[in-house]
Every structure is written in C-alpha cells, then in structure tokens.
C-alpha cells in the first residue's frame, strides 16, 4: 500500500508533451530526439551564448549539452518538465564552461579556431553596448537575464531551472536587471 502510494507520487505522469518524445527516444526512436533537439536548440543556444558570450564556445557548449542529454536521458526522473531539466543542465554546464573559458581559449591554437568558424547567426540587434554590458556581469546574472529575456521563461520556470524558490529567482532577477542597467548606462555614455 505504502509502496503503491510512493510509486504513484514519484512516477506521476506529467502532461508535458515532451515526455512522449522522451519515451519514444528511450524506446529506440532516434527521430524523437532530433525533434527535441530542433525544438530546444535555439533556447539552449541562447542560454549558452548569454553566459559564454562567445559564439563559437556557445555552439560547442550546445553540442555538449545535447550530447549529455542524449546519453543521460534515462536518468530523467520526470518529476519536472523536460525543458526545466534541460535548461538546468544548460545553465550549469555553461557556467562551468565560462569558469574555465580562459584556460580553454589559451589551449586552442589560433589556426584551429579559424578552421572551425562558428555557424552563422542571425542577430536582429546590432547594439554593441548590450554585449559590452553583458560581458561585465557575473555569469550567474547573465544566466538569469538570458532565461528571462531571451528564453522568456516565467519566474517559476527560472526558479526550477536554477534550483531555487520563485521568490529567490525574482529577487536575483531584479538585482541582475539593475546591475545590467547600470553597466549599460555606463558603457553607452
């Protein structure tokens, strides 16, 4: 009885439609993962680009993030939405990469960097002050702004992605936004 209650609580099926794709992939349908990849590529790229700032590093990070998901999808416990789980991995992985970014940059030869240019991106805005102001922020602040302004997640979704409460996410977002405003005004003056 108890185990049945526990199981029902733990494995309550989510109505997240991504779950169907996840189940199909775990049932050996490789196309299901391609669908997930296409659905979330831009959002994950936005997170990686927002945190890492560098286009090439961001594309590299996206490939790594999806490879991690591809290999570890059986560990997804379905207690949260698939997108939340994916964004949490994306944020943590990108911040982890941002911390070691300088070392990696030094290790990559210049010629190799030119051989593998970043894929073309379409950026509607050419405001150079945005990138400059973002570069002056902490990667965690950049992650918050990215999730809110680029991926347009709700505060609860941001909280789930960052593994904190909604109130904490709100406070942190407001602080990050204010710091961004200060940096933006500073660089644009």
């Amino acid at each position: 009885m108890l185990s049945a209650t526990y199981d029902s609580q733990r494995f309550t099926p989510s109505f997240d439609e991504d779950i169907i794709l996840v189940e199909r992939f775990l049932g050996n349908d490789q196309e299901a993962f391609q669908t997930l990849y296409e659905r979330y590529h831009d959002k994950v790229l936005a997170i990686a680009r927002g945190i890492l700032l560098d286009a090439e590093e961001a594309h590299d990070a996206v490939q790594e993030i999806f490879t991690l998901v591809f290999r570890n999808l059986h560990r997804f416990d379905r207690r949260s939405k698939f997108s939340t789980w994916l964004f949490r991995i994306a944020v943590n992985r990108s911040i982890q990469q941002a911390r070691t970014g300088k070392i990696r940059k030094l290790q990559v030869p210049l010629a190799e960097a030119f051989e593998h240019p970043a894929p073309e991106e379409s950026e509607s805005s050419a405001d150079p002050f945005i990138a400059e102001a973002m570069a002056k922020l902490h990667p965690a602040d950049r992650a918050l702004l990215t999730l809110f302004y680029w991926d347009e997640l709700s505060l609860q979704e941001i909280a789930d992605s960052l593994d904190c409460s909604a109130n904490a996410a709100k406070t942190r977002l407001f602080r990050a936004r204010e710091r961004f405003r200060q940096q933006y005004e500073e660089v644009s003056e």
Partner: protein
Amino acid sequence: MKVPPELDDLMWKLAETDDPQALEEFGDRYPDFRQEMAQRLRMVRNLKGAKPSAKVDRFVPKAEVVPYAEPTPKWMVPAAIFMGVVSIAFATYAVTTFAQSQARQEPPVAQNSQQQPPTTPSDDDYLKKDRSTLDPNDPGQVPAQPTNPNPGVASQVPPAFKIRVTVRGTDVSLMQMLQSVAAQAGIQLEIPPGFVDQRINCDYQNSEALAVMQDMGRNFGFSAFVQGDRTVLLIPARSPDPDTSERPSSGSSSPASGGDNVLPPVN
C-alpha cells in the same frame, strides 16, 4: 534623476511588455520620467533583440564530452569554511599550548650543559625526552621536571673533584676541613650566607675530594653542587637520596660537641 522604487518597477514592466498605449499613458502621467522610460525601453528592446539564433543542423552526438559536474550543494561551502576555521583554531591552540609547556621547562639546578663533556645528557636531551610523552591537546598537563637522583653528582665529574685527599681531625671546624679538601684538590668553594659551621670529627684517607664533601654534606647538613671544572657550591640542605651517593672508600665523620658558628661566605 532618481527614480522612486515603485515607479522603477513600473517602468521595467512597461519596458518588458512594450505596450504602446500603456507607454503613452505613462508619458502623460510622469512627464519628468519620459526620457528615462524611453531609454529603458530601448535597452530592453535591444537586449531582447540580441537573442541569437542559428540554423539547426541534424544532431550528431559529440565523441568526447567533458563529464558533467553537478553543482556543489549549497551546504558544502559553509561546511568547508567551518571545517577550515576549526582546523586553524585547533592548530593554533595546539601550537600555543606546546610553546607554553616548553617555556615552563626549567633546567636542573646543578646541570650546566655548556660545561659538561659531550657525553653528558644536556638539558635539551631531558626536554626532548619529556616532550615525547606530552599530549599537546592537554593544556593542564605540565611536563615533569627532569629529575636527577643526586643533583650534586654529575654523571661525569671534572678531574679536579676526583683528586684524592686526606683530611683528619677531632673536634675541628667543618669549614676548616672543607677548605682543606678544597686546597688539596685545587678547587674553589662557594658558600652562601647562612652556612652553619660546626665542630666535627672526621677521618678521610685517600678519598676523592667530591666524595668527601658529599659525605660531609650528608652528615652535617649541606649539599655540594659541582658548578664548573674547579668550583663547588655548598648549600645548607641534604641530598635527596643519600643512599644512592657514592661513599668515600675510607673515612668517617661525626659531629663533635661544641658550639655552631655562622660563617661568612668564602670565595
């Protein structure tokens, strides 16, 4: 211009919703902040517009991926700081306690490491021996003082004190007998104030000078401490364990009837 907090929040919301009608109403209501609102609107628009997008290719898993490191649990950082502080405090306490216990050590009265032959255990040897048994965590533990069963007899006696002397007398002055021993051995007596002279009977024949003085000390109430190659300090006190001291090979002494005299120091 300083923006009030409630207005600041409103301006962020308007900039994020980008509703023309709401923006128009805000401009009419707060004309002083119209410029600030326009600037913030432009900033948010540009930030949103900076979102990258790229052509999505077919997914191909990477051959090598750096293992994913889970973020450190939140409790780990304060726990690590706490453990570090505790470790530093414990180390400081242990070092301080050890230094204090070392400072409390006093050298034995009759030990003079500078004047001892190399084979004589020095004060440092005593200290090292005692330190090895110390518990540095016990602040109340005071290391035991190095003990010498017979402080007047060093393990290695300077040669002058081994010179054999002969003193004999009946109802003679103790001081005179000691000076006689010192004169024969060529050593110098150091006698502190308060040393009591007395009339004694003694008969030491061909005995080592130091042994004669120590035997007299046991009988007449003083201790003889070797202070150097040719100096002996006589203190009016008995040796802690007379039985362990070497007795002269031949000779005897005993108090004689007569009055006591207090002697001045003799150099």
